[in-house]
């Protein structure tokens, strides 16, 4: 039972905006739909961009990956601004509490030296990688065709600079509120042999002119890093008495699992397009074939270096994961050479 409140009812003249009625029928739309669908201009552009006059201001030809209807892709998380920031506010708050807990209980002080070294040398330099990913997704947010994809890229770009800050905060805590660990990590990123393949990878991905190839490329590394940093080493850290690692890694690890949702949905949309699936599959196959071996080398170098600090069998585990990733793309229908 519930009590019945009398209210003034005035019948609305229309349930929502025309373009949503045309797509989804004569019914009220969600806030995700109203705030996203068909928002990007598609016609009657006034001037060609001076930085790329061969294209329009918004142009599907900024990428070889295309959708006949860009709104055949929808963010499965239905993120528009408000639910996005609400969710991430909770994530960062939870992370902050964990970090306070780790600091208050001096958990790093009780972490085995080798694991502390491993965090400093293998995890903290990733803040630079994440910062590179921010740039890559911000670029994609500008040049993607369609507001649903662009919105996911906008949020992903912001997520990545957020990840860079989370990892940096771990570094500051590990360095006992000094910049010592961060400075060493930056030196590793710039100079240590184990980091050079990954740094080269992200620098090259950033100059890739096709935004979608860039997205596919960093996702290959992300899949492998997720396995290495947020699954394998997380598990081994608990066994090895480095619970602090796991406590902190869980937050970014949870984020990795969540961001897969929109990427996997986008991949499916590209490959299910009624007209362009074939061309997309060809571009996709070429991108994965070109970048997967480099991703395997880049993350493999980190895994090998991790094994020299704490031997957890990371390199061997990663090799198996590379084969699995290749199989995942093949299962989507790609030809990966």
């Amino acid at each position, binding site marked *: 039972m519930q009590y019945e409140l009398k209210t003034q009812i005035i019948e609305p003249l229309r349930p929502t*905006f025309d373009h949503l009625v045309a797509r989804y029928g004569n019914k009220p739309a969600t806030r995700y739909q109203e705030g996203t669908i068909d*928002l990007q201009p598609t016609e009657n552009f006034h001037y060609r961009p001076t930085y790329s006059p061969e294209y329009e201001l918004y142009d599907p030809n900024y990428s070889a990956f295309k959708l006949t209807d860009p709104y055949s892709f929808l963010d499965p998380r239905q993120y528009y601004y408000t639910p996005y920031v609400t969710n*991430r506010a909770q994530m960062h708050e939870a992370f902050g509490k964990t970090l306070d807990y780790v600091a208050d209980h001096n958990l790093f002080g009780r972490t085995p030296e080798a694991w502390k070294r491993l965090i400093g040398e293998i995890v903290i330099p990733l803040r630079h990688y994440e910062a590179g990913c921010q740039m890559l997704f911000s670029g994609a947010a500008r040049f993607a065709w369609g507001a649903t994809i662009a919105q996911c890229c906008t949020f992903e770009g912001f997520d990545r600079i957020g990840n860079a800050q989370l990892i940096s905060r771990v570094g500051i805590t590990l360095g006992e509120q000094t910049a010592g660990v961060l400075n060493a990590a930056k030196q590793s990123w710039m100079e240590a042999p184990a980091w050079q393949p990954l740094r080269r990878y992200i620098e090259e991905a950033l100059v890739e002119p096709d935004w979608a190839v860039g997205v596919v490329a960093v996702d290959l590394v992300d899949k492998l890093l997720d396995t290495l940093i947020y699954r394998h080493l997380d598990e081994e850290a608990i066994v090895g008495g480095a619970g602090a690692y796991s406590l902190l890694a869980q937050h970014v690890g949870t984020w990795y699992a969540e961001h897969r949702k929109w990427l996997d949905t986008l991949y499916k949309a590209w490959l299910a397009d009624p007209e362009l699936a074939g061309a997309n599959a060809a571009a996709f196959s070429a991108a994965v074939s070109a970048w997967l071996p480099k991703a395997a080398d880049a993350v493999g170098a980190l895994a090998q270096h991790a094994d020299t600090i704490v031997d957890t069998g990371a390199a061997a585990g990663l090799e198996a994961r590379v084969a699995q990733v290749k199989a995942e793309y093949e299962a989507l229908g790609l030809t990966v050479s």
Partner: protein
Amino acid sequence: MTTNPTKPVKKLSMQQRYSALTRDIDWTPSYVTEDQLYPHTTYEGIKIHDWSKWDDPFRLTVDAYYRYQAEKDKRLYAVLDGFAQGQGHLTLSDPAYLNAMKIFLGGVTPLEYQANRHFSYLARHFNGPGPRFAAQCQSVDELRHAQTEIHTLSNYNKYYSGMHNFAKMHDRVWYLSVPKSYFDDALSAGPFEFLIAIGFSFEYLLTNLLFVPFMSGASFNGDLPTMTFGFSAQSDESRHMTLGLEAIKFLLEQDEANVPIVQEWVDKWFWRGYRVTAIIAMMLDYMLPRPVMSWKESFELYFEQQMLNGLFPDLAYYGIRPPKGVEQAIWEKEHLSHLVYHTFYQFSHAANLTTSIPTKEHQAWLASAYPDAFEQFYKPKWDKLEKMAAEGNRYFYPGLPQLCQVCQVPMLFTEHGDPTKLCQRHSEFKGEHFNFCSDHCKEIFDREPEKYVQAWLPVHQIYLGNCGGPTIPDVLAWYGYAEGDSGEMLGNVDHNNWKKWHAQVDDSVGGRESVEVGGAAEAGKGA
């Protein structure tokens, strides 16, 4: 003296910590060149020697950003939901007020969306992590504004006309090409010019003239949701204003050679933005049932006092003078809104909004706000149109207006100093003839003719047959208009529904004399 047994730790200060989180994550590439990584920051001629000199006064980190913004949105959406549930739209001053919001949703909201996309471009393409992060925060803010504006106005769209097709209208409707071409101009420029055009000129120099009047109009006319949105966006906007000011100072401080380039942009973008404000001047003076302040007053306060007397003396230190065109804008403040509304009155059969002769009370207000211009120059025009309307001959202009090639406003402006003489300027480029509304639009064209010959001029496109067909009804169908979107306000769909709904709601104590359901029905027949 005793020594501490543990080695003293040099802890990070707040500023160092902020720098570690936002600046130190950057690195200089070595596997690709800096030119490859940032290919767009040299071709405009701007020289940056030290990107680390970019100063961000807000010291915002990502976690703090999420926390503030999530909290603000929770409050905003609570207001939107409550207003919708309680049929708050019936508490507006008058349904005619929503004409202002039709302009806003079709003219401004799509620009917010485009700002989201292009500040992302800056967040990718600037060489320095400081401006990249500032641009990235602004990019997501702009997405917030586009979406919260749509969600705010969505409830009105359910009950009133002119908003149902706003995104398509923005891309197609003749007068909306004024804001669209303005923003396309900025988006198609290089990253530094965009920063000056939008970051500085729009967000700082003109924001109190371009954006704020809508929010103030809302608060005066019972539009609680839009007013709440306005307050909710205020802290974002103050960050954007700070970015705009930092942007121009940063460019000016980096190299003396930047000064003349920036000056040209300040000149251009003042005038481009000022011409967009023609629509806002009309909205402020003629379209708010309860006016906030006149355009003249607004221009004097927000531009002459705050910018000319406040900002430009500071910029003079860097060698920047007030923009060209300022003198003309100051002179035009007496005339602008009257000229524009007079034109819209005659073309509202082709707009997504309605117009009417200003009421006696409204004309009295205009006369007091414009003692030197209204009665002398504009009241006679309204008297003439009023007489025609009273004789059953409500006037609509039967043809299409000529547009300025640069600002795309119909050629309705007069010579600087003479409100009775229409201004027309021309240029030839590659054997073609182009028209301009003013010396300053002509100068903008002559500086970059290759750009402005590309303009998608709505009237020209109609003549070319690119807008749905040769007749006005064909074009209006292509715009996606529906009954009630356009024309005379009195007797219009919104006007009639308003009377009907108020009769229904106000009848709860047994009927009020002021509400006549029959009157609404009769007005409906007359439409």
